[in-house]
């Protein structure tokens, strides 16, 4: 079991709603961004002198630009339906981690300066002045929200605390109080192209290494191309897929699926990152700037389709926002959704029986599936509502013999966050990450004990990294977390011996690509 300098929650049979204990997590806060990292994103380097005035100006600006922010600030009736829904509250007992209390940290300031009752009767409606203490409290508790939207499922007005957290972080950034983890990473994306700061040549090396590994393993030359022009598909995947376990096994899987589908594809060194942390800090401008790289890469490479690899928040930005931020994508093939999820892609092939699969390759495992919050509550797959739950499960069941779901109150739209989303996946927030994982760990532990589950599959780079770190704290093994396309990779039988041809580079490319797409329809 991993060592901790805090108390790791004990797993019980049920996820119990704790009695509130004030202040248990008041000490938790992430490292502040260095001035350079703030200025790289267009924010002031350090806390500005007239920060109160500036923060209120920003709040006013945001409430005029975001209907969600204005409506949610005004509409909460304090009914309490959300109070026991946040994994961070369940894991820490700190009442300020109850979604409504988290919103109130900001709402009480909004009331003080922007509403009549708050101006004249602050005590009556719980309005307070914006002081340094309040700002510190924002910094602490808005970085204990993974923007997972679980609270919004149960709120009678759909109040989404994630929207408030994002606004709060943007207000803080605008006065020079940035979070190191997010801001440093976004700056890296602008400068180098991905979160990990992996430059083009290193990426090319890595991919070459993968090709060799897969060839050694299977005897088939599956390609993992980079910056190849004129191919059908541009794959955008989280950079963790390039080397970390179990992520990279997923990437190997995508390549095998493309290979078997007979489509040509490429990664891009310019857009070598699916993640978009601009969302976490609530900055439309930064989110847009990160997204535009994908549009540019697609145009430069002349692809027809864009497919996203396994990543939760990235799929939210891709599915829900990409068309808004970087569209319209009228230059791509209109026969396919833009963008498409790799699970949708694989699922389509399954529907056409276009893959040869040997399920028994995964017989050493009994699997369950962790619905990642952003995929579950902020996106869709396929044509029907809820496809985001069915399609990944259909893919897993097509490649595995042993599958069980966790308790129904902890999956689907009610899924519990891994505890590391929303820009919290950093070691300086380990305590809140471990504690916030308690509900998910409880549900997992139950299927391990009762159903003999050995592994949990996920389709999110953050979830996978978080579980790798957190499972050991709960006495489980870090490699019990697997990628969905790792399972596909294990089961898939490679029937094509050669690499698909690249249309545009070879004679008769038209014909070749015609058949390729046909095979997939």
């Amino acid at each position: 079991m991993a060592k901790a300098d805090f108390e790791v929650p004990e797993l019980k049979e049920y996820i119990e709603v704790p009695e509130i204990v004030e202040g248990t997590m008041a000490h938790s806060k992430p490292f502040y961004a260095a001035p350079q990292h703030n200025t790289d994103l267009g924010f002031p380097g350090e806390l500005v002198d007239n920060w109160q005035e500036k923060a209120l100006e920003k709040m006013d600006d945001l409430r005029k630009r975001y209907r969600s922010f204005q409506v949610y600030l005004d509409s909460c009736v304090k009914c309490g339906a959300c109070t026991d829904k946040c994994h961070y509250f369940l894991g820490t007992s700190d009442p300020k981690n109850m979604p409504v209390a988290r919103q109130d940290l900001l709402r009480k300031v909004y009331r003080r300066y922007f509403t009549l009752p708050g101006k004249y009767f602050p005590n009556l409606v719980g309005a307070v002045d914006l002081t340094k203490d309040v700002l510190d409290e924002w910094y602490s508790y808005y970085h204990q929200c993974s923007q997972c939207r679980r609270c919004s499922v149960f709120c009678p007005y759909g109040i989404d605390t994630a929207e408030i957290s994002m606004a709060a972080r943007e207000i803080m950034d605008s006065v020079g109080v940035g979070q190191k983890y997010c801001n440093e990473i976004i700056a890296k994306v602008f400068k180098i192209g991905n979160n990990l700061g992996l430059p083009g040549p290193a990426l090319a090396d890595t991919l070459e290494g993968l090709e060799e590994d897969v060839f050694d393993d299977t005897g088939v030359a599956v390609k993992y191309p980079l910056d190849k022009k004129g191919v059908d598909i541009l794959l955008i995947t989280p950079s963790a897929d390039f080397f970390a376990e179990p992520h990279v096994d997923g990437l190997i899987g995508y390549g095998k699926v493309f290979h078997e589908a007979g489509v040509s594809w490429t990664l891009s060194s310019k857009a070598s990152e699916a993640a978009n942390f601009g969302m976490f800090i609530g900055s439309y401008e930064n989110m847009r700037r990160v997204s535009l790289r994908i549009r540019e890469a697609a145009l430069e490479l002349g692809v027809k389709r864009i497919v996203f690899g396994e990543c939760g928040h990235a799929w939210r930005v891709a599915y829900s926002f990409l068309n808004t931020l970087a569209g319209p994508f009228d230059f791509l093939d209109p026969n396919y959704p833009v963008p498409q999820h790799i699970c949708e892609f694989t699922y389509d092939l399954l529907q056409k029986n276009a893959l040869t699969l040997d399920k028994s390759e995964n017989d050493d495992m009994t699997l369950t599936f962790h619905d990642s919050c952003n995929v579950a509550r902020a996106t869709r797959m396929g044509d029907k509502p809820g496809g985001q739950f069915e399609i990944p499960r259909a893919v897993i069941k097509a490649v595995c013999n042993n599958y069980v779901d966790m308790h129904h109150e902890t999956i689907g739209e009610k899924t519990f966050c891994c505890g590391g989303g929303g820009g919290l996946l950093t070691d300086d927030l380990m305590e809140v990450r471990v504690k916030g994982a308690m509900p998910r760990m409880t549900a997992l532990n139950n299927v391990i004990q009762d159903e003999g589950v050995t592994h949990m599959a996920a389709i999110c780079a953050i979830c996978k990294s978080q579980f790798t770190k957190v499972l050991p704290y709960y006495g489980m093994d870090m490699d019990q977390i697997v990628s969905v396309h790792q399972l596909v990779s294990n089961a898939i039988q490679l029937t094509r011996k050669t690499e698909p041809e690249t249309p545009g580079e070879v004679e008769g490319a038209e014909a070749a690509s015609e058949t390729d797409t046909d095979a997939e329809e």
Partner: protein
Amino acid sequence: MSFLTIVYALLFYAATAILTLGLAYRIAVFAKTPAPLKIPTTPAPVTRTGVVLRLFREVAFFESLFKGSKWTWIFSWMFHLGLLLVLVRHVRYFVDPVPMPLVLIQPFGVYAGFAMVAGLAGLWARRFLVDRVRYISAPSDHLMLLLLLLIGFSGLMMKFVSHTDIVMVKQFFRGLIEFDWHNLPLDFPLIVHLTLVATLMIIFPFSKLLHAPGVFFSPTRNQVDNPREKRHIARWAKKLEE
């Protein structure tokens, strides 16, 4: 004409003006603030009709609250349904002649008053008994419930204990509408009832009672899940593209 009649006539003109103008202003603010991104809480409807149905379920049955907390749901539904019936029943003080459907629901209205008060009592009990709800309650949250409870009590008092002259009440309010003022009966429960009702009307646009219009403007509930099919862009965001 009694002094009190004049005071209450003016009070109700003022309260009506504040309620309607205030609410119109708040709704206008909600309506004209753009929603730059598609953020429906999924699984979400993929058509407009689907969204209309989703909102209908939220407003009529409190669907999300039902998922969230069964006790709150029961009390809340009792209170709101009771409130609705009571208000519909009250329309008879303002229109003449009273339409047939209103006459027909009158008998149910009596129970509605009790349902409303019982629901409110349950909701208020939660604010004391559940530590999480106690923590998030500001004085205004308690006072709002107290206000509604007192309105309910004073109404029920008039109905069952100390009757007031309903014909005169009606004449007073018809008179306000037609600018032909009539005296208000000087009964204590009625005066309490009307004072509290005017208070409710005045605070409505400045309080959390904005949840009533708010639910229709909540992007997580009123957006169609079709971002890939249809490009969604706010005007201020469009400017960034120039």
